[in-house]
Structures are given as C-alpha cells and as structure tokens.
C-alpha cells in the first residue's frame, strides 16, 4: 500500500517534471532565436538601415529601406486581396451556405491552407507574371493574398458564428433584412475577432519567401508603383545570407531582426485590440 502510493507520487512528479522540461525547452527555442538575432543583427540596427538603399558589393554600410518599404507594399496588396475574399467567404459560410456547399468550401479552404507556399508562388507566376511578362509587386502581393484567404475565411466564420442568435433576431424583429442584419449588427459585433484573424494572417505571411522568389523577385533599388520587381525583407535575407560577403551576412541578421519585430508588433497589436474588446464587453 505504502509502496504503491509512493510509486504513484513518484510517477506524478516525474510526469510533471517531464512536461515542464518540454514546455520550457519550447519556450527557450524562441528565446534562443531572439538572442541570436539580437547578438548578430542588433549592432547594425541604426538609422541608415531603415533609410538607405543597399550599397554596391564591397562598400560598407547601407541599409534596406527598399526592402522594408517593399514588404509594407506587398503586405498591403495582399491585404487588399486576401481580406475581402476571406471575409466574404467567411460570411457566406457562417450566414448563407447550406450543408453541402459549406462542406465543400470549408474543405477547399483547408486544402488551400495546406498548399505549400512555393506552389502558390508558381501559380501566381503562371497567371500573373507570365501574362504580364515581368515580375511585379502585384504578382507578389497576389501570391501572399491567396495565402491569407483560407486563414481569414476560417477565423471570420468562427467569430461570426459566435455572435448570438438573439442579436440577429433582435435586428430582424425590427424589420431588418438578412443582409442589413449581417452588415449592421453581426459583422460589427464580430469585428474585433475578424480583425484579429486578419492581423494573424498578415503576421503569418510576412515572412514568406518562396512565393516571392518568382513573383515579386527582388530589386536593388526602390520600386515605384506596383508594376515592377520589388525587394522584400524575406527575399533580402535569403539573398544576403547565402551571399559570399561577411557584411551581407550581418545585414541578413539585422533584416531578420527587423522582420521579427514587425511580426511581433502585429501580434501585440492584435492582443491589444482583443483586450480592449473584452474590456468593453464586460
């Protein structure tokens, strides 16, 4: 009896310890990455990194202003494509679709979510780059936007479904049509959730490299407008990290740090929106 309970206590403690070790190992991986990035890239984070163009090979200094602006432009285009498509499909799934079409759309969205990003890049290459005859911001933004759609769709659907039926009935009982109800009551009630989904999708695609390689390509200079090849942080990291020069490697680390900072800001902003919303609902 005593032996038995002793064994049980030991097993309990052992399992607790084991799970804790793994949990902390996981967390420490993140801190390791962060520490490494700061160690290698931190010293080059300065004003000129954000404001200057890359220097020609052999010259020291220079920055990645073009890639930072490029990433911002690519994400904006992706947002303009991915958000409406995702939101409208999410509304369809949550509010209109019947069983069979919903199953179909949901299944296709899950499949799309699982398509490797490089395949989406090839797809964008075939339908945007080839007909246009050149790489462009639009093509890169399109590829990233397509990747956002399934993420936004599923989160929009979930947050809309969470809006209580009584709210919809309240609007309809006042004579609102279904569309009116969705537009003026249901979507606003789910707005912070939908925005959260969009920001998480943005954070998720901000670091994508593969789909940009044959769509946005890269550019040593600034890229005016949306119809020319454009530099982006992930592709810069890729190019600089495999380049043969020491100062390129350092700049790649810095770009990684900046990219991580961007994703971090998106994540924190998401939480803030959420926190404000939950506080308001109380």
């Amino acid at each position, binding site marked *: 009896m005593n032996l038995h309970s002793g064994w049980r206590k030991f097993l309990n403690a052992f399992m607790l310890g084991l799970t804790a070790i793994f949990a902390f190992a996981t967390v420490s991986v993140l801190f390791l990455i962060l520490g490494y990035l700061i160690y290698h890239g931190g010293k080059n984070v300065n004003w000129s990194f954000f404001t200057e163009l890359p220097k020609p090979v052999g010259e020291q200094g220079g920055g990645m202003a073009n890639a930072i602006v490029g990433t911002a432009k690519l994400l904006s285009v992706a947002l303009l494509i991915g958000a409406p498509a995702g939101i409208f499909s999410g509304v369809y799934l949550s509010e209109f679709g019947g069983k069979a079409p919903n199953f179909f759309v949901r299944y296709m969205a899950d499949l799309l979510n699982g398509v490797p990003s490089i395949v989406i890049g090839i797809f964008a290459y075939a339908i945007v780059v080839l007909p246009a005859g050149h790489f462009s911001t639009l093509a890169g933004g399109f590829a990233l936007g397509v990747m956002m759609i399934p993420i936004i769709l599923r989160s929009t659907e979930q947050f809309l479904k969470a809006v*209580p039926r*009584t*709210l*919809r*009935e*309240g*609007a*309809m*009982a*006042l*004579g*609102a*049509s279904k569309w*009116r109800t969705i537009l*003026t*009551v249901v979507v*606003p*009630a789910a707005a912070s959730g939908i925005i959260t989904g969009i920001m998480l999708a943005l954070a998720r695609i901000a670091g994508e490299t593969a789909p940009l390689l044959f769509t946005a390509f890269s550019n040593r200079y600034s890229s005016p407008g949306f119809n020319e090849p454009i530099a982006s942080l992930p592709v810069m990291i890729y190019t600089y990290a495999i380049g043969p020069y020491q100062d390129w490697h350092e700049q790649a680390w810095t770009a990684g740090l900046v990219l991580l900072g961007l994703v971090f800001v998106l994540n924190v902003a998401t939480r803030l929106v959420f926190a404000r919303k939950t506080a*308001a*609902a*109380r």
Partner: protein
Amino acid sequence: MNGASIVQKHQNLEPVHLGQKDIPLVELPIGTIKPQFKISNLKVSYGAKEVLHGVDLDVFANVVTALIGPSGCGKSTFLRSLNRMTEVVRGTQVEGEILLDNENVFRMDVVKLRRRVGMVFQRPNPFPKSIFDNVAYGLRINGHHDSLSEAVEHSLRRAALWDEVKGQLHKSAYALSGGQQQRLCIARALAVNPEVLLLDEPCSALDPITTAKIEELLFQLKSSCTIVIVTHNMQQAARASDFTAFLLDGQLVEYQSTRKLFTTPSDPRTEAYITGRFG
C-alpha cells in the same frame, strides 16, 4: 381605448365569442373592443415535430393579453408566428391563417409587418452599439434620418429609462444593468411606433422593482399599442393583463378575461395550472 376600464365600467355585459367554438365564452360588451389579430387554425411545426396543433384566438386591440402555460407548450412559438419570426428558424412550417386588421400577414411585406408588430425577447439583446444607436436602429433601417434625437428621447421616456441614461446616450448599451437593457430593448421596439408589441417573458431576469416598472409601462402603453405578453408569473398575468390565454401542449385550453380566468376558470386544467398543481 383602455380595455381594462371597459371591462370594469360596463354593467350590461353581453357574451362575445372568443376563438374556438368549444372554448368558453367571455363576458364582454360587443362592439367596444375590436380584434386586431384574428388567428385561426394555426399549426406550427419544427421539422417533423408539430408544436402548435391548430390554435384559434383573437387578440384585441389596446388591451394587454397574457399567454400562460407550462414550459414547452408553445407560447414563444405562438408569439413568434405573429410577426413571422418563425421564418428565421430553418425548417419551420406554419399553417393556418393570421389576419392583422383583416389583412393576411403571410401576404404582407415582412419588413412592414415587423415594423407594425414589434417584439421584445426573453433575454435582453441590445446590440453592441451605443444606447442612442440601439434605439435609433429601427428608425435608421426604415430610412428615417431626421430628428432622430427627439425620437430616441421620446422612446426612452416611454420605456421609463430616460432619466437613468439621459447624460450618457453615447455609452455602450452593454454598460447598462440587465433591467435597464430590457427597458432599452423595449424603447428600441417602441421607436418605430408599432401597433402591436409582443413581449416574451420580458421580466424573467429582472428584480421586483424593475418588474413593477415594466408592468406600469405596459399599462401606459395600452392607450397607443396592443400588447401580448408571455409570462410564467401568475401574479404578473393577473396584475398586468386584461385577457389571459392558457396554452397546454400546443393547444389553447382557455381564453378569458383575466379576472374571470383567475377567479372562476372554466376548465379544470386551467385551475390546476394557476393553482400550481402542475406545469
């Protein structure tokens, strides 16, 4: 016109026919009150399950009609048929005839119907908007954009909420207490000036003081509105209504003036229910 006072004032009462033939007659003066809703053979089913099995009932104008009956007997279903909210739930079939001022509601434009027949739900369901925008909602979707603030104030006054919220109309409706939210929902329904107000257990989540306020409100609203209220509270039905209908298992058992139903019910099942012996 005030139904309760009519019932009390008139001495020479003559019987008037209320609904089904085998349902007892009510003593009421002919011609002094008119039916607003005429409901005949109303059958409602959810999928294969029929929950109202042919209800006949006339709802009179400018009086308060209470619907009582055990849980699940179909009170909410009956109420929701009157403004066609049954259609919102998929797979619901409605049979029979409902006339509003002699016009078939199933042939009316549903938006117009719901504007004329407002509804307040069992649990307060304010929109996640400001107090002002909640009350103005019905007006806005009906295309009214002028003098909204007067209309909002007027409705809030009618719902006995104005004094509590007047300085803070732009606050979120979620910041109000449950009782205030329920009165906000009443104000929201009143803003479009409905002819009929349907209330589904509006006081079930409220304290006695707020409940008294709402009952007082019903009394005042009678002059401008016809009211149908579902309630589980026998005292409330007895206090606040002029007529009471007792539903049991999807059938109308008895429909009487409230005074008569609670003092001398003609069906033994009614008596059993109001004395708390079942349900």
